């Protein structure tokens, strides 16, 4: 085995010899969670005397100028510390998007502006001794607005006489006068020409809605000054390092004056890849020197947070008579809401994740992202993938029907295979040019086999085609095939450091952010495997900007794939040092030794020395030094995971009601470091994708005010609505990932919507082109068909 980086080598044979990886190791924080002792931001007792509470006033208007803020009655209340608005907060433009610097999102947001751009936008904030007092104070503040006309439909943004970002100091907006936040175009070959020459050309328009991530824990931050006069910020975030940098900018203070700690997160899914409330919380501490807590209510979590980008997509495909795809075009209009957070990059991802699955020689992609006076879209699990695949996969199913061919064969025949280049990956990076990807692993066929079997696809299709003729309750099956990515090539970086303790345990410090995704466990397993110790010997501490090395944070499905290698590198450095000391203690040559189960062992004599012996020797006895290692990782590879999802539905054609009967997912995630946790990621993603397909939708009234900002009215599937679920992990061995891993956390959200749409169409011959597929929409379409 090549000692240099054997953690990058894997195969079925190698996997058999692994002791920590590929096993369902006990979740490192599972015990304390189950005991009710896990401490989230709101649970921690801070080293402060008194905690003050901040509340934000949100705009009731979609678009307005703040003419006057009369806070006199609020300030007169005993226990109110201050009221903060554009009148007394310095004006600094930044982006709230938690992205790599320089952020590809426009700097179009100030902490408190003189203008509000959506119903829910910030107007001002109050700081008071209790949350109830802060609420009372908010109610006493009188704000005078000059209400402006609002743009509430993305199709009306360009060329509208209303300009949403007419301020002079914002930067990075592509065309303020046309309300265009960003635009991107990418081309391979000549799609226009290829369409003219094709035997079949099909074109359809699809649209997708505003949805919410709805993590169970709303946004929360606590900030205070420590004894070194630095701001300490505890927050529920995916991006502690980006938060530190962006908050420093917003406050106008050096980065070294802030420490950001993410203790635990109660779910994020992208909505916490944002500096959403941290800036206000930190600013209030900065100004008042007091400890401040800012916690969103559930209503605020819906109406003033971040959402998924709604899009209108036009897909056009050209085929030869034999079903070979010769041209593929995707044009989309996206709504980024009032601010441009993640505007360019989500839509770039829509193109690259969806279109790269197919190897049409001529591809055209264009996305225009516009502002509206509606809630801000940002990062949400899947990051453009769910939108793109709803359109693309539904479209391909339809093409197959029109051409009279099997839709699965049509897809599979045109999909990329191992060895293929993905040309669009070069044209579409994260706001800059990307890096050409060549497929090294692809488990799509095996995924397909499993899912087809679970839902008995071909047999059921035949059976139901007959049975449906005689019943108003119709059944159908549908498939979706998707591909995603692992990290952002050339951009994402993770780092880690490890040191040994007296008893052969190790402290692992890494910036990588566990959102409940389980990365603390996964990364401990990786470190343990490289160090040849049980996972229980690794003590992981993550996401503290003072103590842990840098990591971009948890997004883009990067943690296992990229941060994992950094951890492995750090562990390998430690291992090399341990073996060297072992060689000295055993008086043997390096090449005659190996490590196993916390010991350095001689191949020849079988004599061994434990890691404890090595630690005690190096820490206390002779030639003392601290055995420790560090590592960073960045890669230009972005190996895609693959996924097939299949669905069986039952449609009541008299009411339009869709019942989910069965749902199967198979994901090629490379190697699964912890299989049960990988399954959990898949099942959770499916839940989100099914909600996207059937019932989740943020709604607005004629004035742009959200009408369903709560769990009662914004409906998500409960235990009683979920179908019978099957989950499979298909393993391939990706040479660029630690122990062969790719990623798993986002791809399961990409496929449920098209799988359901295809199953519904199979059941009742009606296709719905805009999500969600509600019973009302379906019944209307069924009646229209009659």
């Amino acid at each position, binding site marked *: 085995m090549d000692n240099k980086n054997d953690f990058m080598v894997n195969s079925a044979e190698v996997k058999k010899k692994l002791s920590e990886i590929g096993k369902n190791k006990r979740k490192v924080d599972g015990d304390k969670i189950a005991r*009710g002792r896990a401490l989230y931001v709101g649970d921690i007792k801070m080293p402060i005397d008194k905690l003050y509470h901040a509340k934000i006033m949100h705009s009731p208007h979609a678009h307005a100028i703040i003419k006057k803020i009369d806070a006199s009655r609020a300030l007169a209340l005993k226990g109110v510390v201050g009221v903060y608005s554009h009148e007394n907060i310095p004006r600094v433009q930044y982006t709230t998007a938690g992205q790599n610097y320089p952020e590809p999102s426009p700097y179009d947001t100030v902490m408190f502006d003189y203008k509000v751009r959506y119903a829910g936008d910030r107007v001002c904030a109050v700081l008071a001794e209790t949350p109830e007092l802060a609420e009372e104070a908010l109610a006493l503040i009188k704000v005078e607005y000059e209400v402006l006309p609002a743009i509430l439909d993305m199709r009306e943004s360009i060329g509208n006489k209303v300009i949403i970002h007419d301020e002079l100091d914002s930067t990075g907006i592509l065309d303020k006068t046309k309300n265009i936040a960003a635009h991107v175009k990418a081309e391979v070959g000549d799609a226009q020409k290829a369409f003219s020459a094709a035997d079949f050309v099909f074109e359809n328009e699809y649209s997708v809605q505003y949805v919410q991530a709805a993590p*169970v824990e709303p946004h929360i931050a606590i900030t205070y000054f420590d004894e070194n006069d630095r701001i300490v910020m505890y927050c529920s975030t995916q991006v502690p390092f980006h938060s530190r940098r962006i908050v420093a900018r917003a406050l106008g203070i050096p980065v070294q004056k802030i420490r950001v700690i993410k203790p635990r997160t*109660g779910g994020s899914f992208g909505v916490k890849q944002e500096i959403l409330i941290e800036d206000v919380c930190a600013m209030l501490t900065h100004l008042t020197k007091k400890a401040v807590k800012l916690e969103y*209510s*559930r209503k605020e979590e819906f109406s003033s947070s971040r959402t998924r980008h709604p899009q209108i997509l036009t897909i056009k495909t050209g085929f030869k008579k034999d079903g070979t795809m010769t041209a593929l075009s995707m044009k989309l209009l996206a709504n980024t809401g009032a601010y441009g957070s993640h505007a360019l990059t989500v839509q770039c991802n829509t193109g690259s994740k969806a279109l790269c699955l197919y190897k049409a020689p001529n591809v055209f992609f264009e996305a225009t992202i516009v502002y509206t006076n509606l809630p801000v879209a940002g990062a949400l699990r899947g990051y453009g993938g769910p939108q793109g695949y709803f359109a693309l996969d539904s479209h391909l199913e339809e093409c197959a029907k029109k051409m009279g061919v099997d839709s699965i064969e049509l897809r599979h025949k045109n999909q990329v295979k191992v060895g293929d280049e993905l040309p669009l990956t070069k044209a579409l990076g994260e706001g800059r040019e990307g890096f050409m990807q060549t497929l090294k692993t692809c488990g799509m066929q095996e995924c397909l086999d499993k899912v087809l079997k679970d839902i008995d696809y071909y047999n059921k299709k035949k059976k139901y085609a007959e049975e449906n003729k005689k019943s108003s309750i119709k059944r159908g099956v549908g498939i979706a095939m998707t591909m995603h990515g692992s990290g952002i090539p050339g951009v994402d970086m993770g780092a880690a450091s490890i040191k040994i303790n007296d008893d052969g345990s190790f402290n692992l410090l890494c910036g990588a952010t566990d*959102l*409940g995704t389980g990365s603390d466990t996964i990364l401990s397993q990786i470190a343990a495997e490289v160090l040849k110790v049980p996972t229980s010997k690794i003590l992981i501490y993550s996401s503290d900007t003072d103590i842990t090395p840098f990591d971009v944070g948890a997004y883009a499905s990067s943690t296992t794939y990229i941060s994992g290698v950094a951890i492995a590198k750090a562990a390998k450095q430690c291992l090399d040092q341990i073996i060297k000391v072992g060689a000295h203690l055993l008086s043997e040559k390096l090449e005659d030794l190996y490590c196993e189960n916390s010991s350095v062992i001689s191949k020849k004599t079988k004599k061994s020395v434990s890691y404890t012996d090595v630690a005690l020797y190096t820490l206390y006895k002779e030639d003392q030094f601290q055995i420790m290692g560090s590592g960073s990782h960045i890669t230009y590879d972005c190996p895609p995971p693959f996924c097939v999802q299949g669905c069986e539905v039952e449609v009541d054609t008299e009411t339009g009601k869709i019942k989910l009967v069965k749902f199967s997912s198979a994901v090629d995630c490379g190697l699964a470091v912890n299989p049960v946790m990988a399954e959990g990621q898949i099942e959770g993603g499916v839940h989100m994708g099914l909600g996207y397909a059937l019932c989740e939708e943020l709604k607005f009234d004629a004035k742009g005010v959200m009408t369903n900002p709560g769990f009662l009215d914004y409906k998500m599937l409960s235990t*009683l609505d979920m179908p019978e679920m099957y989950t499979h992990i298909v393993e391939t061995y990706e040479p660029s990932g630690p122990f062969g891993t790719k990623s798993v956390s986002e791809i399961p959200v990409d496929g449920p919507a098209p799988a359901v749409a295809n199953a519904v169409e199979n059941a009742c011959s009606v296709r719905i082109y805009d999500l969600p597929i509600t019973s009302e929409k379906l019944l209307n379409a069924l009646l229209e068909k009659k």
Partner: protein
Amino acid sequence: MKLNLKVNGENKVFDIDVRDTLMDVLRANGYTSVKHGCETGECGACTVIINRKTVNTCIYPALKAENSDVITCEGLEKDGKLSILQEKFIEMGAIQCGYCTPGMLLSAHALLMKNPNPRLEDVKDALSGNFCRCTGYKKPVDAVMAAAKEMKGGE
């Protein structure tokens, strides 16, 4: 004013404000497993067992719990040993971010106290008021069924 009740088997007297919800009181007195997820009794993150029944404490006036027998997640273990239900949740991957876990464990516990032999529909019903965005519910439901089986002495 004072609130008298039993929490996890111990008699307690808490100093409260008449306007407090039970969630306010429990969290202020160290039972931080009771979580804030919403303010309208819709997500179940604040679930607690009162007199053997699960309740959303965020909309339960503290005074209503006078003389009641309350169980929080902290009370599920015995002498530092995790219950079978807690173990199953950990083993079977039913925990991800963990924010909904205390509420779910209590909903499951309340079910098993009343019905040690639940059908799948009973478990789904019992957990239907505990919103989870991480797991898709499959593993938590499976974990409760497995716990019930093991508690009955099945293999």
